[in-house]
């Protein structure tokens, strides 16, 4: 892989990732050593800074991600005001409710409760930063566990998770007794 292709891959990966990407992850994906990845990253960062561009790469929380340049904040403010349909769907809300009460929880467990596949709800919630990965479950496949974020609390105006309404245990602990999957 040549130098500019490696930079392009780097750019694509940082762009598409839901969370900041670490040098280690980049090194695995590109099959390049840390030093090379760091040099590529430095160059890419430089390019975004030098050229008059709207975005830049920033190091946060031990990883790299794209952010908009602060000088264009006013325009992004305007983007906020352009009305666009973006409330959470009821499906996403239901998934969120289950995660909130039963965290940490795996995708498969959520699907058992909701009776439908929840990949899409999870993607939306991850994208909106309302949930995050919260480790992995012991056992076969070591599936990802999900939990809610600080932003989740903010979104619902809660001070802490303790403020969630108390729900009779079995409502959310219950395996779904009816089969919703029959086609």
């Amino acid at each position, binding site marked *: 892989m040549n130098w500019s292709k490696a930079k392009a891959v780097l750019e694509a990966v940082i762009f598409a990732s839901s969370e900041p990407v670490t040098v280690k992850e980049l090194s695995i994906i590109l099959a390049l050593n840390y030093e090379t990845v760091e040099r590529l990253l430095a160059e890419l960062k430089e390019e975004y800074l030098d050229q008059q561009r709207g975005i830049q790469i920033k190091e946060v929380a031990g990883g790299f991600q794209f952010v*908009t340049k602060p000088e264009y904040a006013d325009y992004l403010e305007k983007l906020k005001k352009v009305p666009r349909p973006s409330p959470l*769907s*009821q499906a996403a*809300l239901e998934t969120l409710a289950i995660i909130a009460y039963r965290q940490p929880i795996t995708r498969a467990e959520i699907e058992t409760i909701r009776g439908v596949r929840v990949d899409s709800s999870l993607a939306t919630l991850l994208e909106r930063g309302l949930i995050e990965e919260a480790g992995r479950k012991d056992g076969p496949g070591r599936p990802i566990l999900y939990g809610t974020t600080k932003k989740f609390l903010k979104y619902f105006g809660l001070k802490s998770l303790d403020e969630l309404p108390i729900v009779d245990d079995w409502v959310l602990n219950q395996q779904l007794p*009816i089969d919703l999957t029959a086609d």
Partner: protein
Amino acid sequence: MRKIKRRTDKQTSYQVKLAVFTGPLDLLLHLIERAEIDIYNIPIVEITDQFLAYLQTMEFFDLHVAADFLLMAATLMQIKARMLLPRPVVETDAETVEEDDPRLELVERLLEYKKVKEVASRLQEWETEARRFFPRTGGYFPDQETAATAETAGQVTLWDLVQAFSALLESLLPRLELEGIPEEEYSIQGLMEKIMNGLARESRVSFRTLFSGLTSRKAVVASFLALLELIRMRKVLVQQEMTFGEIVIARWEG
């Protein structure tokens, strides 16, 4: 009439990966295409036998045979019976289906379904193609904060609803536990219709009333899911007169 190549070897059943068909029409189309026969001139006897053989194989493997397949089997047998009845002799091209041919309706359905499969396979190609383009999923951008307000279902949040449901269960549970009423099957769709029918008679129904006649856990959970579904589809509105007051379900107007 062209003769269908008979495949009696057991292996065929395995090759036709069991339960991969999306429905009876899918299976029927597969049988027709495998036998390389004209869709307008289906040898109904053979095809019916093969269809039934497939259902038997499924049963043999303890796979659940869906009602849709059984319905189609019945339809095929009905057509077969009608085909075997003597009919007035009419001079026609043997390759085309006559007006009163009992197969006509089936042929039309199959042709229509063939188009569905065509479009579905095109959609699948596009899906595969589109999946190579990854959109942004993270990063810090101010507009993501736009949604920082609680969304409500009508005027009541989902949390209120879950809480209400939980309180309701607490009061219902002792009764539900005691009564050994045989479990029934509940369809969410059916319960949704039931709720909507109730709302057609009365414009507003209290949350409690909605669940009052239910006699099992299954029924309560299914009804709650049906209610959530109706809220999601914006068919009903959930309101609360005052904090901690009775929750009321109303028809979504507009």
